[in-house]
């Protein structure tokens, strides 16, 4: 809004030229916007200014001495000089000082070629050093955790890493030690920089003092090509730049945007590019021979695979059989749309579900009114967080909530199990939604309500109706943010990968939407909701599913009842698995199709805010692996359906045409400064669900503990286990219990326990190491998901703990 801009800016004199700047803005940023680059090392736009490096000193009329431009705020009429002989001399002096002890080992430094110290030396430095004495020496490099190495000789003590660790990540494990000329960045004795965000310190280091083990010595900046894309690690949708050399992904760096990630990435998002180049990728279509043993697949051509699948579909449709699909949260919007269209148009069914009964009801997610975006956090009067442990599951969302709460002072109410790194800052913590009393909220201002599935053993229906009830009670003040975990699960729901929804946040019985689809889609599909994942698997167990597409999903790991999932796959006559890697599901497949994934397919994805952002293809998929969209189109074409959607671009145009919430989303809107923030989709036409008060779920009687199953950041998921640098980082099979509960049960911290479902039909029976954790609510046993073999999780389960001697 240009009018607003003029209202909020004031004139200042910059090197004799009048420019406009916002009062309160730091001089260094204002000057940069006006086209004057003031050199800097310690200043970073997303970190608290410390004015330590002294590189940005300028002269300001009326202020005594030189002023650090990174610390002085803009005031109307101030006269700033950035090019005086004194300023120039000081810049040369500071650079000479910084280079005194810098080893100048640029030829073997990862930073060489893209190093701010090199660049500044070229632009602002004296050119020659007068230092003839001995440089400082340190052991080099030393690991500060499993992913990052520290070379203290290269360090210029700018405190970017230490500020990031304490102020942004909330992991104050990097600090300065010693003083003066011995000042050095250090970790504490026997305490590594255990942070899910440690890669960020490598990225923001202005020299090569911090290097990442996965990227170290892999490439030089002039050997790589770079494409901007969106991280596929979770549903937050952080922006990043993907580097490729010789058709291999070798690095992923955060890209700053105001709306979502501020340039940060979690370590999983940052380093998981390794899995794309894994040797274990599926590279050719596989077909199970009728007579062969369980694991005997034979390689077939794509043409043959497509033909055989098409034949099966034709046969099943001819006999009135059932076709269903589960999965799809890994796909781009365009691929998900293709799958959605394929299932409706080609297979004539609504039996599709991108969630594996481990998320929230799709109509709650798609139908939420008055949605919050991430940038609402800092402006809210309060944040009510009734979601999964954000630091473990949606890490950069955690960073943004943390910033709002810790740095901006927004009060936080935590409902449910502990939030790592946030519960300590909460104004109040409630064990369950039932215990929460809205009377405690501030009387005015926006209430940001973040709602997610907190435990696989939690009743998702009850959670969502409670959230709706609270929204109704408080009215327009509530800004709701339903959060799911998997990368593009929100996009997949928006594309209609849900039994009750069509593309664009409308229900399957929405007449207007069906009418519009009928003009584009050639084929019939029922007006009633189909089966969800659990119902599909139920039907499969009963032998009622004839063809099951499993698309980038592993129900044997992620569905809460792996035993049932296995039986379902065994009893389905024809199982088609599309995936990047062999999984426990591929063992029961009749056809395995190698899919192209993140970094190999271009298109768009939608994050948990409903923000559409682009993803880029940077390398070719291995072997014959192909985009899921291409597979579905070719099968459709084989069945003589005019499928369209030949390219991601064409598919996006079709989405914009038929999906109400995506009207107006087009590639042109991703260009320019505004396009950097992505495109927020509109509201759809999913009717708000009915709300209900949350049932009191008091602590179970007797010896039973409430079962909590949450995700841990490092687990056995593909992203982690197929990355050599990350696969060893998961905490392993543990359970967490409050120390008082442990004491009462006579169990010591660190001993082995058996976790048993109280319901004999429950089938949960685990042997784990118990860890005392006072953040776990009393009466709860918390089991991280997917740390070793999957186990059966019953909603509302209560369990007993037995000591194993």
């Amino acid at each position: 809004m240009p009018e607003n801009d003029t209202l909020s800016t004031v004139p200042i004199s910059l090197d004799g030229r009048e420019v406009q700047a916002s009062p309160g803005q730091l001089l260094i940023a204002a000057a940069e916007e006006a086209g004057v680059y003031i050199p800097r090392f310690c200043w970073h736009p997303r970190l608290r200014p410390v004015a330590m490096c002294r590189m940005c000193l300028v002269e300001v009329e009326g202020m005594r001495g030189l002023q650090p431009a990174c610390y002085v705020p803009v005031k109307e009429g101030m006269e700033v000089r950035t090019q005086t002989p004194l300023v120039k001399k000081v810049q040369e002096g500071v650079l000479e000082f910084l280079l005194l002890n810098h080893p100048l080992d640029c030829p073997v430094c990862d930073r060489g070629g893209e190093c701010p110290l090199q660049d500044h030396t070229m632009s602002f430095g004296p050119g020659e050093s007068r230092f003839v004495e001995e440089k400082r020496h340190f052991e080099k490099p030393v690991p500060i955790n499993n992913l990052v190495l520290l070379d203290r000789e290269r360090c210029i003590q700018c405190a970017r890493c230490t500020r990031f660790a304490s102020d942004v990540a909330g992991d104050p494990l990097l600090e300065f030690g010693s003083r003066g000329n011995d000042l050095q960045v250090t970790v504490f004795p026997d305490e590594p920089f255990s942070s899910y965000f440690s890669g960020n310190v490598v990225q923001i280091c202005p020299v090569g003092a911090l290097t990442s083990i996965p990227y170290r010595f892999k490439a030089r900046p002039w050997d790589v090509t770079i494409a901007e894309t969106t991280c596929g690690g979770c549903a937050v949708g952080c922006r990043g730049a993907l580097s490729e050399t010789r058709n291999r992904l070798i690095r992923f760096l955060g890209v700053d945007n105001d709306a979502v990630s501020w340039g940060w990435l979690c370590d999983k998002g940052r380093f998981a590019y390794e899995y794309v180049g894994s040797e274990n990728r599926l590279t050719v279509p596989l077909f199970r021979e009728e007579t062969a043993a369980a694991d005997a697949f034979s390689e077939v051509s794509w043409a043959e695979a497509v033909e055989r699948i098409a034949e099966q579909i034709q046969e099943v449709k001819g006999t009135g059989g059932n076709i269903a699909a589960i999965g799809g949260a890994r796909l781009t919007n365009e691929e998900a749309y293709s799958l959605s269209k394929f299932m409706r148009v080609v297979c004539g069914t609504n039996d599709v579900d991108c969630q594996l009964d481990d998320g929230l009801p799709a109509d709650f997610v798609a139908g939420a009114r008055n949605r919050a975006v991430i940038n609402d956090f800092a402006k809210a009067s309060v944040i009510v967080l009734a979601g999964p442990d954000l630091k473990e599951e949606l890490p950069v969302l955690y960073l943004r909530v943390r910033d709002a709460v810790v740095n901006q002072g927004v009060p936080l109410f935590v409902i449910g199990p502990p939030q790592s790194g946030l519960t300590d800052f909460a104004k109040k913590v409630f064990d369950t939604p039932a215990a929460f009393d809205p009377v405690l909220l501030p009387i005015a201002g926006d209430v940001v309500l973040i709602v997610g599935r907190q435990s696989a053993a939690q009743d998702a229906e009850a959670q969502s109706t409670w959230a709706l009830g609270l929204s109704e009670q408080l009215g327009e003040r509530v800004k709701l943010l339903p959060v799911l975990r998997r990368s593009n699960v929100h996009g997949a729901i928006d594309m209609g990968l849900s039994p009750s929804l069509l593309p664009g946040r409308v229900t399957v019985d929405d007449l207007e939407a069906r009418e519009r689809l009928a003009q584009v889609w050639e084929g019939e599909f029922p007006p009633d909701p189909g089966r969800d994942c659990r119902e599909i698997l139920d039907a499969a167990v009963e032998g009622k599913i004839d063809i099951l597409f499993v698309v980038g999903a592993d129900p044997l790991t992620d569905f809460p009842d792996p035993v049932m999932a296995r039986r379902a796959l065994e009893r389905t006559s024809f199982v088609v698995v599309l995936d990047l890697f062999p999984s426990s599901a591929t063992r029961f497949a009749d056809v395995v199709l190698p899919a192209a994934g993140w970094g190999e397919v271009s298109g768009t994805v939608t994050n948990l805010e409903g923000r559409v952002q682009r993803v880029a293809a940077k390398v070719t998929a291995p072997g014959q692996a192909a985009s899921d969209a291409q597979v579905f189109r070719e099968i459709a074409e084989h069945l003589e359906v005019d499928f369209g959607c030949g390219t991601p671009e064409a598919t996006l145009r079709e989405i914009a045409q038929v999906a109400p919430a995506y009207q107006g989303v087009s590639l042109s809107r991703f260009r320019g400064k505004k396009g950097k923030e992505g495109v927020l989709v509109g509201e759809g036409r999913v009717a708000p669900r009915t709300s209900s008060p949350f049932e009191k779920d008091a602590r179970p009687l007797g010896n039973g503990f409430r079962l909590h199953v949450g995700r841990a950041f490092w687990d056995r998921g593909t992203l982690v286990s197929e990355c050599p640098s990350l696969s060893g980082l998961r905490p392993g099979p543990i359970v967490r219990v409050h120390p008082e509960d442990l004491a009462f049960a006579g169990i010591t911290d660190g001993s082995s326990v058996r976790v048993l479902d109280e319901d004999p039909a429950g089938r949960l029976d685990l042997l784990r190491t118990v860890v005392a954790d006072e953040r776990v609510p009393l009466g709860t046993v918390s089991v991280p998901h997917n740390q070793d073999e999957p186990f059966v999780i019953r909603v509302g389960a209560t369990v007993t703990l037995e000591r194993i001697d």
Partner: protein
Amino acid sequence: MAELVLTRRMLDRPHDSWTLDAYHEMEGYQGLYRAVREMTPEQVHAEVKASGLRGRGGAGFPTGTKWGFVPKDIFPRYLVVNGDEGEPGTFKDRMLMERDPHSLVEGILISCYALQSEHAFIYIRGEMGHAYERVVRAVEEARAVGYVGKDIGGTDFSCEITVHKAAGAYICGEETALLSSLAGYRGWPRLRPPFPAVKGLYDKPTVVNNVETMCNMPWITRRGGAAYAEMGTERSPGTRIFCLSGHVNRPGNYEIELGTTFRELFERWGQGVRNGGRVKAFVPGGASAPWFDASKLDVPLDMDVLGKEGSMLGSGAVMVMDQDADIPRAVWRLVKFFAHESCGQCTPCREGADWLEEILERMLDGHGRPQDLDLLFDVCDNISPGLNWPPAQTTICPLGPSATAPVWSTIRLFPEEYKRLVTGAHTSLASSAPAGAEPAGVTADA
């Protein structure tokens, strides 16, 4: 000679001046009672203003004016007393804390009353174990009889005093580094604004005053600001303790009236230069101050006059060097101190102070090069542009410029001594002393 404000008690009662009993017998805590019972906080503040008392820590800022910077209506507010005396050659606060701790406690209570602060902190240098014990004991004695704590002197004024033993970093004598250290953070100077008076300890308005400054308060309250202002000079009123050290016959702490000349300080109080020698150079106000040569002997001990002469009265440490002193070696030792004590926060001081030390050391080791004098000047200039006093600085705090002051001031005053080191004249092995040795002459006398 004016009356002794600060050292009378320890001279009269050398064996027990630090006890409450002795202090009581010498008008102890009468100033406090006068303040809290007969005066309003504003009246006490007005007396301090009228006294013209200037801070004794180094900067010499008028105390009453400093108190006036505290915002009117923000509470709590704190008084923090800087007892982190660490400037080489300075040893007056230690003596006051060891021998007259009750005057410090009384001064703090009076100041807190004037500032309407209910909590004061005394930050004592870690190495001063004895001083720390004496101050802790004095606070406990004062608490036992009701001077410290609730409802002091039967009034509704309450004040708590916390004594903190520091960990031994010179930089923590810088007031903002001190506040960070006291609050449990790394002892690094803070950027200003905000100033401590607005946002200091625990982000609350805070006044930081030196120990000696505080010890003047009982006298000022008892006798009035006007009486104090009659002593000393117009702009530097009162008496002050000077820490006289170096090549004089009687080094020590001397409380004298401001306005006395250096010559009188050296001759009357220091009883002349050792061995009947002559003054070659002296440091007029602590290790941070630019040096003077003998031409400045008749300059009066007056803060403003010294400022005009291009140095400062600083912490009151006066170091005398006779004709045998090896100036570059003495300077090297001071620079080594500053390099060692640099906090490392900002680049010019962290890197530059150490470089200065290394250049000087190389020169003293006989490896001086003709370009080294220009280099020394330029490195100093990159830390403290212009090489003037009071200094300009590229650093956050004045420690960086302090490290340069001995270097550039002595190269200007004694260029021959440095030229000797860079023209090869010094490369005779016989004339090079072992690294780390005392200035030539001292060992010969000992």
